[in-house]
Each structure stands twice: as structure tokens, then as C-alpha cells.
């Protein structure tokens, strides 16, 4: 198990290097002269040349790559042109908001999706199964921005139950930053009122973000459960007199969970990418919003930074999924 974990971590490092290299290639293949972009439309040739030297853009590509990778290793993601602050610092400031949103959405997806998938498998072709089928198809089909706006109009504007957007109202003093996740920090600080406020803010964006993910978790879990419930060892468990609930909830679910986990890992990465839309609709101050505003002002270093950070979290999530696989399935541990 330990060597397995160690190998997975090694793979993680390798993939990370791959992503960094790929990002570098993409930025260099993209058309346009970055130095001229930075300098702005009214710059003189001299200014462009100065900027080119300053950013090291006059060096050969391999040289640039070495410098770029070296910077990455030391945690230097460059500087934002707009704010002139280190990109790493800014990304770290915005990342917790996005992670909090993704965690809540993912929890929602798992907590609702897995049991619903189980139920529709057990009562296959029954009313529950049909209801979840419609539910999950709409989950995949509805565009996030549209669904988000509808929710805002209904629950925030018309009913007034929940705030329209944002993470915390301006008048609320945020709790002392420990993890950066408001829900956690407010609990650490013992401020239940702040916890309640931030929970109300996160509900709508989390629902929008989790809906497609929930739908696919539900479908995968349903299909797997149906398959597992027909397998020989389930028949054997019944024949040995094990109670139906235990068979479904423990014997079958553990087996069905493996492919569902894979789906969860993939969906995690997808969610990190989708936050761009959801954060825009809900004005959620995360890295998605940060990336969009940077891209709109041709500020490329932050965009690369965000890409790398999202890639990093995605790989970490999938490494965790791999480890969970081995934890659940003894056959993988010795492999």
C-alpha cells in the first residue's frame, strides 16, 4: 500500500511537469507578440524592445523554458500587469473561495447523487427511477449560466430567501483567515452568524455547479448498482440470509462505488473549470472570476497561473481517487 501511494505521488509530480510544459508551449504557439501586447497599442518600438528584454522574451525558446520552469519550481508565477503584484499571491488569495465552492458542490453531488443512484437501481423501472432519470437528464442538459440566473430570479429576487450574489456582504467582517474557507474559518472563530451568512451565499452557486456533476454521479452509480446487484456474490449473500438492506447498502455499494469514484475525480476537474461561468454569474470572488477579468485585460501571467493551479488541484484530486480505489479494493494494493 505504501509503495502504491509512493508511486502515485511520483506520477503526480511527473504529470505536473507535463502540464507546466504544455502551458508553456500553448502560450508560445498562440499568435501575437506578448511584448507588444504588454506594451499596449500606443507603445514605440523602443518600449516594446525594452519590455521584451525585461520579460526575457528575446531569449531562445529553450532558454525561456528553462527560466520558466526554474521560476515555477521556486513558486514564481510572474507578475500581473494590471495589479503589478505577484500572480502566486493573487491566486492564493482567490483560490480558497473557488475551492470552498467546489467542495460544497461536490459534497452535494455525492451526498445526493450516490443514494439516489442506489435507490433508482434497487427500484429499477419504478417511479423513483423514472423521476431520477428526468432529473439527471435536465442536470446534464441545462446550461449553468441560464440555470444560475433562473435560480437567482426565483430564490433571491422573487422570493427573497437567499442573497443574489457574492460571498459575504460588504458590511460583514470576514473571520480571521486560517484556511481561507469562510465556512470553516467562521466555525473556528466561533462566529455562527457569519457561518450562517456565508452558507446562505454559497447555496445557489453550489447547486448550479453541482447539478451536472450530481446527475452523472447518479447515473454511473445507478448503472453500477444494477450490475453489481445481479452478480453471483449478491445472490450468495441472499442465500446465506443476509438482510436486504445490508446487501444493498454495504455489500453492493462498496463494489459499485469504484467506477463512481472515477467519475467523481473527473468531475472535480470539470467543476474547477466550470467555476469560471458560475463565478461570473454569482459574482463569486474566486480564481475563475480572476482568470476572466485577467484575460479580458490581456493579462496573461495570471491566466497561466490559474491554469496551473487548476491543473494542480485536478491532479491532486485524481491521485486521491486512485488512493481511495486501493483503499476500497484490496486487489489493487498488491498491484
Amino acid at each position, binding site marked *: 500500500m505504501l*509503495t502504491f501511494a509512493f508511486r502515485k505521488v511520483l506520477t503526480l509530480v511527473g504529470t505536473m511537469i507535463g502540464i507546466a510544459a504544455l502551458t508553456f508551449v500553448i502560450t508560445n504557439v498562440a499568435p501575437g507578440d506578448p511584448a507588444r501586447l504588454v506594451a499596449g497599442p500606443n507603445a514605440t518600438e523602443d518600449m516594446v524592445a525594452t519590455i521584451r528584454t525585461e520579460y526575457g522574451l528575446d531569449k531562445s525558446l529553450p532558454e525561456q523554458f528553462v527560466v520558466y520552469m526554474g521560476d515555477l519550481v521556486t513558486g514564481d508565477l510572474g507578475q500581473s500587469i494590471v495589479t503589478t503584484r505577484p500572480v502566486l499571491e493573487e491566486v492564493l488569495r482567490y483560490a480558497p473561495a473557488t475551492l470552498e465552492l467546489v467542495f460544497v458542490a461536490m459534497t452535494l453531488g455525492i451526498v445526493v447523487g450516490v443514494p439516489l443512484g442506489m435507490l433508482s437501481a434497487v427500484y429499477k423501472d419504478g417511479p423513483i427511477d423514472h423521476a431520477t432519470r428526468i432529473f439527471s437528464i435536465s442536470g446534464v442538459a441545462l446550461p449553468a449560466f441560464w440555470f444560475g440566473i433562473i435560480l437567482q430570479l426565483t430564490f433571491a429576487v422573487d422570493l427573497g430567501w437567499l442573497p443574489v450574489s457574492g460571498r459575504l456582504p460588504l458590511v460583514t467582517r470576514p473571520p480571521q483567515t486560517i484556511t481561507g474557507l469562510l465556512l470553516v474559518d467562521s466555525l473556528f472563530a466561533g462566529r455562527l452568524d457569519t457561518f450562517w451568512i456565508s452558507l446562505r451565499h454559497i447555496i445557489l452557486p453550489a447547486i448550479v455547479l453541482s447539478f451536472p456533476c450530481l446527475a452523472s454521479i447518479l447515473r454511473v452509480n445507478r448503472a453500477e448498482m444494477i450490475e453489481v446487484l445481479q*452478480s*453471483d*456474490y449478491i*445472490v*450468495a*449473500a*441472499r*442465500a*446465506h*440470509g*443476509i*438482510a*436486504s438492506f*445490508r446487501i444493498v447498502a454495504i*455489500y453492493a455499494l*462498496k*463494489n459499485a462505488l469504484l467506477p463512481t469514484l472515477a467519475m467523481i475525480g473527473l468531475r472535480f476537474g470539470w467543476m474547477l473549470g466550470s467555476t469560471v461561468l458560475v463565478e461570473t454569474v454569482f459574482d463569486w470572488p474566486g480564481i475563475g472570476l480572476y482568470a476572466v477579468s485577467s484575460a479580458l485585460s490581456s493579462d496573461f501571467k495570471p491566466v497561466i497561473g490559474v491554469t496551473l493551479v487548476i491543473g494542480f488541484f485536478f491532479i491532486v484530486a485524481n491521485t486521491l481517487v486512485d488512493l481511495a480505489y486501493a483503499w*476500497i*479494493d*484490496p*486487489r489493487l494494493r*498488491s*498491484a
Partner: protein
Amino acid sequence: MTGPLLNIQNYRLDIGTFDGPVHVLKDINLTVNRGDTLGIVGESGSGKTVLVRSVLGIGPKASKVVQGSIAFDGQDITALSEKDWTKIRGIRISMIFQDPMTYLNPLFTIGQQISDVITAHEKAAGKGVSSKAARRARTEDLLDQVGLPNPAMLFDQYPHQLSGGMRQRVLIAMALSGKPDLLIADEPTTALDVTVQAQVLDLINSLVEKLNLTVIMISHDIGAIATIAKRCAVMYKGEIVEQGLTADILSAPKHEYTKRLLAAVPDIDTAAAKVVAEPAIGTPVKPGVLLEAIDLKKVYRSQSGTEVTAVDGINLSVATGEIFGVVGESGSGKSTLARMLLRLIEPTSGDIIFDGRNISGLTGEPMRLMRRHMQFVFQNPHSALNGRHTIGDAIGEPLRIQTSMGRRDIEARVEALLDIVQLPKMFKYRYPHELSGGQKQRICIARAIALNPRLLILDEPTSALDISVQAQVLDFLQELRAELDLTYVFISHNLAVIRQICDRTIVMKRGVIVEQGETERLFLSPQHEYTRALIESGRKTSRAANLSAPAGSR
């Protein structure tokens, strides 16, 4: 208690399908008294599994009892509620299953699975759950009872760490945990190796004696039935066509089907009648060597670096026109060897000489062209055919790949091939699921001979088939060989089959040849201990099944 333990009367069962109900069981009448050992024999699809599963209330979902009753210990159980079943299932009636590989949950330890069963029983009995330690002690007791070594260690192991025979013992331990009145064994030996089969049958026999169990055992292997069951019922197409004392049925079968079944059982102790003598017009002129393997070796390396030698330095030579047998238990490397001979698996080292040409280094186009001379027939015809292709597509495929024949020619050739394998021409429009197992295997053979190969490698071609079908396919294979001048490498774990058709045989164990020679000599005077053990285990069931054979033949 005086009445019969199990009394099935006029039992009829339908299963609803897309095309309307199928009458799976028709008018079943069966009584089992305490202490009885009853065998139910019949081919696949005869309804025997559905019958015994009905006794345990775990029959197919869409089934419907049309008529009749099943009474267990005086209580009708055909319409029992789930709750009442919990007092019976696994406690008063329990079951052991066919394939120990798939009937244990792969993600839970042996100990946990058995203690779970114990817990369920205690809950059902309503006397509260005993302590974890007590359950562990009971579990280890049970494992010990079924003859498993080191129960304390086994408790924390997972199913994949155990061999097939050990898993079957674990399943038996599980079935015994409720101290059942009635034990149902559903093909308990079918998926096991010959030597393990004999051990498991011995175990069941000793348990019957020790625990005074009542047993119903179903099997298509009449030999296995004969070793366990005093009484026997023969099922055919959902009906019981004959029942009585096993000895009587074996020595004087009354029903047509039983006679056919018994005639089809190959006898390990009879020399082959050699259905086809060497064809006179054949090729005695060039009794050359067609296939040769020199120091063939295959080493598998797992990710963690451990090496497993599946085949270790095998030398063999197959003469043109002979049937060359390869016998061994699962894990002996015989399938790996077969696949290497055709270069379906790359050998780690060694040479393969086909018709005087070393093919071990061949790649690309020359290898592809070589393949038309050597073909493979797989073990399980049910999975060897693509369910979405018609039979015509399947047989025509090698022609499309290897030749430049036009569509019309291919059609004609497919029809001719169907004719050779003695199936109607119209079969080319059918899909695999519309065919029986024996028919599918014929299709696989037709596909293999489509290119007029010189060598056929047959990997357990009959082990997935019913016994009566097995006999047909074996006969057919021998006819075909004479007709098309083929050479076979025939792989099997069934010694009786090997003796029936192979000229020369090698015995494999853990990747090496332990003995080789003329098949008859091998059976009459086996030199190696392992060969003797194999024959002895095979003999046990074979002899029981061939009670009716004249005594002079042994």
C-alpha cells in the same frame, strides 16, 4: 418428526420474458427425507438451478408459480414473506455455489463475510448478536471444519488471495454456519480442477456423515453426483424424467435422455475406440514434424517487480496429422503455452518452428500471412463470437481479412463451411444468441478452418459444453481431422477426453512438462507422481459414472 423434510408437489414455474412466459419447470414432484442425499442431473437449461433456487426463495425475479407447492418441514414456502425467509435462508436451508471465484464478495475479508452471515442468523433468531471475539472464534471453527489450514490467518485475507479450492471450502463453511437441515449444492465442483474436485467431493461426503446433513446436489457431471448421492433425479427440459436410486439409474437407465447422457460420458479407464483410424489415403508419406517448440519460456512481471514463470523451458514437437494432447490443471501454463505457439502471446525466450520455419522472430506482414496456416478454437464459444455479428459475418471474417475473395465467393465458402460443420446453410443469417452451445462451438470451428489451416489449436474446446454435446463435438473433431488433413494441439483438463482422442500427450504442472509420451502408455503406466494423482482423481468420478460399463474394460 416424521414427514419428509422437503416435499415438492406438482410444481410448475413460468418465467416472464419479452416474448411471453417460458415454462421453465413442469410438474416437478420430488421428496427429500432427512438424511437423504439426492442428486439432480441434467444439462444446462434443464431447469435444475431454477428449481433449487426456488427452494431457497431466490429464483429469478420475473418468475411466477403457476401451480403446486414446495413444503419445507411441513410449511409451504412458495409464498413466504421476506421476513419469514430470513428465518430459513442460510439457517435451515443453505446453499453452496458453482463458481467459487464469483460467489465471494471481492472487497470484504473472508472473516468478515462469514461473521456477517453468523450475525444475520443471530439477528433472525432474535437472541441478540454475540461479541466480535465469539463470532471470530466461531468463524475460525468453521474454517477449520472444512479442512482449511491456518484459519486465524485466513480470517483477514481477501478472496483473491485464495485458490479456487480454498474459496469453495470457504463457501461451504459459510453454508454450514447456520447448522442447516438441508444443504443445496449447485454444481459445487464444476469450476474446479480435477484433483480439487475430488477433495471437495470427499469433504462434502465427510460432512454429510459427521453432521448428518441432508443434501441436494445438482450437477451436469453424473460422476460427481454418483460419488455423493444415494438417490438421483434426471431433469430434462424442465421435467424430471427419471428418479430412483443412483445405482439403479446408472446401471439400468430407463429414459431415452438418461441413456444418451450415460453413453456420452467418456470413461477414463477405457482405451479410445479411435473413431477414425488413420486415413488410408492420408499422408503416411511425410510423417514430418509440423510444429516444434524449443525451450519456450514466458515470464510475467507484475508492476511491483515480482516475476512469475508461467511456462518454463518447454520443448515439444507435434507431428503432421496427429492429435497432440496437453493436460494440466488451471495455472499449469497450458493456455499460455497454446497462445505462445500461435504467437498470440510473445514468448519471453525460445523458438517456435512451424513447418520448418522459425516464426518466433516474425513480425508484420510475413507473420500475418503465416497465421492463415494456424488457427485457434477458444474454450468458451459463448464469448468467442461477437453477439452483434451474424454467423455469416463471423465465419467470413478470416476470408475477408486474409484473402482477396469477392463477396459472392465468400458467401459460397461460408455456406460450404456450414455444410462441413453439419449446420444448415440458413444459419448464416442468425445471431449467436439464437444458437446452442454446441452449435456455437461448431461455428467457431468453421471459422477456424475457413482458411484451410494446417494446424488447429483447441483450448479446452468442450469444457464449456454439456456432456452429451461434448461427445458430439469430439466425434466431429475427429472426423474433420481426417477429412481436412488437420493437425491438432488439444488442450484439456479432462483426462477421459484426452484419452479418448489424443495420440500423444504432455502433462504440465507449474509451467513444466512432468511427463510425455503415447497417450495410452501414459494412462496404463504413468511414471510421474503427478500424472498418477491426476488420473486417480479423474478416475474417482469417472468410475462412479461408468458403473454400467462392462467390468472387463477396466
